[in-house]
């Protein structure tokens, strides 16, 4: 009887603890709203600074005629544009906030990010004061945030053309590099003869940074575009080929034996056993190649392309238009992040069978 009682109380105690534990983890409405407000306070401060902080230094605020999406002609100066950007970010945060409202896990994530978002707003305010309002930062190297927006206002169309050029170059080079890498990797991993002859070549040439081949590329290929594609291809090719080969040759014998007893022939063994088995490594290769490809893309654009974001940076630097350099850098950050997100999504989907095995 005693024992039963004590376990019963024990149970109640542990349940009480569990409830407390759960209560700790639940984000209350009030807490969430306060934190959400906190996260946009920084940005609101940035808007206030931009509007009400006296313009001490002498800066010309130019107004541009901008045709948004080619449909809405508007007049914008950089201060207005900056406010629009800040308001857009606030609206995005608010949107995410509304989306997060309905789920406790998302709420937690959202309030966890609040301090960082607040700090971003404060940083923008300080930057605005030092870079635009008082010009205390050395000019023209460190323009204020609104000044950076002058680049897309002034030549948005031209920047867009350069983005397209970069994207074309990257897609052509990276996709062919990855495909070539997978093909070589499978051949190396599957045929010992190919391993013997190709693998040393891969090991030696693979460590050379692709841009070292630039002088040859520029003379051997008819157009600078093709030369840059070639450089990106070889920089993506090495890590993908290397890791694919590793994944293929690391396939457990038992999988081949299973397939053989089920009646499989060589094509099945390659395409439905070895390659799926190597897929995690192939994706490791692809993400490494991705990082290399960004570097190669920008360097080759800076050194002899008629377009692209790298070219735009270089061309702007010549005119000391550092605000354009910053604009291009910010665009790159966004663009490359999106590309990495897309690759990550593909990887997640193709390796969905690994969920639960690997963290």
């Amino acid at each position: 009887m005693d024992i039963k009682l004590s376990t019963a109380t024990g149970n109640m105690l542990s349940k009480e603890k569990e409830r407390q534990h759960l209560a700790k983890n639940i984000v209350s409405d009030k807490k969430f709203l306060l934190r959400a407000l906190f996260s946009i306070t920084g940005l609101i401060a940035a808007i206030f600074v931009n509007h009400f902080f006296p313009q001490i230094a002498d800066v010309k605020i130019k107004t541009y005629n901008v045709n948004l999406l080619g449909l809405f002609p508007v007049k914008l100066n950089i201060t207005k544009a900056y406010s629009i950007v800040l308001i857009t970010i606030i609206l995005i945060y608010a949107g995410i906030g509304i989306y997060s409202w309905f789920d406790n896990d998302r709420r937690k994530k959202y309030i966890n990010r609040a301090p960082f978002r607040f700090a971003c707003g404060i940083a923008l305010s300080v930057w605005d004061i030092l870079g635009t309002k008082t010009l205390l930062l050395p000019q023209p190297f460190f323009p204020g945030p609104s000044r950076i927006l002058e680049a897309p206002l002034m030549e948005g169309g031209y920047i867009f053309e350069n983005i397209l050029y970069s994207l074309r170059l990257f897609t052509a080079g990276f996709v062919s590099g990855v495909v070539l890498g997978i093909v070589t990797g499978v051949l190396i991993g599957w045929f010992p003869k190919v391993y013997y002859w190709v693998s040393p070549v891969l090991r030696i040439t693979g460590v050379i940074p692709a841009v070292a081949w630039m002088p040859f590329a520029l003379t051997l290929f008819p157009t600078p575009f093709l030369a840059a594609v070639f450089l990106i291809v070889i920089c993506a090719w090495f890590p993908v080929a290397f890791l694919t080969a590793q994944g293929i040759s690391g396939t457990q014998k038992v999988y081949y034996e299973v397939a053989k007893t089920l009646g499989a022939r060589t094509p099945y063994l390659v395409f439905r056993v070895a390659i799926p088995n190597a897929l995690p490594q192939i994706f490791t290769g692809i993400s490494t190649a991705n990082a290399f490809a960004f570097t190669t893309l920008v360097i080759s654009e800076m050194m002899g392309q008629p377009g692209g974001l790298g070219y735009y940076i270089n061309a702007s630097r010549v005119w000391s238009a550092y605000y354009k350099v910053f604009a291009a850098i910010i665009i790159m950050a966004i663009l490359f992040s999106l590309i990495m997100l897309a690759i990550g999504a593909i990887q997640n989907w193709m390796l969905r069978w690994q969920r639960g095995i690997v963290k």
Partner: protein
Amino acid sequence: MSEPALIEIRNVFRNYIDTYDNKVEALSDVSLSVRKGEFVSIIGSSGCGKTTLLRLLAGLDVPNFGSLTIDGHEIKNPDPERGYVFQQGSLFPWLTVEKNIAAGLKARGVYKKQKADVAKYIDLIGLNGFEKSYPHQISGGMAQRVAIARALINRPTALLLDEPMGALDSFTRADLQDKLLELWKRDRTTMVLVTHDVDEAIYLSDRIVIMTPRPGKISEILEVKLPRPRDRADAEFNMLRSKILEKLHLASTKQVPEYQI
């Protein structure tokens, strides 16, 4: 019982060189015939060559000497007519349960024609609702059911099982044994089971082949005449068990320690 022999193993020798450069006689002059529709277990301590023998039957390995035939033709390569169920962890981790079972159909290029079989075999092994699960999401017993279904979907004349229940707990194991018997009775597929579990061998088989190690050879073949379903607590069952255990102990008196420190 008067069925003609389906599998004939004649004077088979298989040697290999181990990691210490010693010559190991995995099989020495092994002869055995298995009738069509028969359930045969091969039992023996580890290292007696029972798995080697099964691999030779599958065509995953070739003998140094002797011949193995099925239905009169020689076994040279793996073939879906001889299904093989491996020990744990042989499911393709990148395929769902459903697709693992369909693998045999796809490998033989008959998937489009026999697609409907997949659902049938899932039903047969009682894994409805787990079609879309990946191997790591199901239990060990379920995984071995899938492995059996994957081999059976090719409608093999013989099913070779290499300790398929070795790593399972005893409840799951008993459950799977009954499932295996059920499948055997249904299609009368000839079964050759390698095991180190004496009870399992008695519970399932028509005949039990006892093998002894170094060199691996057949020491005795026992017929089990108990009616099915067999009772593990039955007096005759127990007698048979002690008899086999005695043989195995006798067989292992000359045994050298298996692991050297």
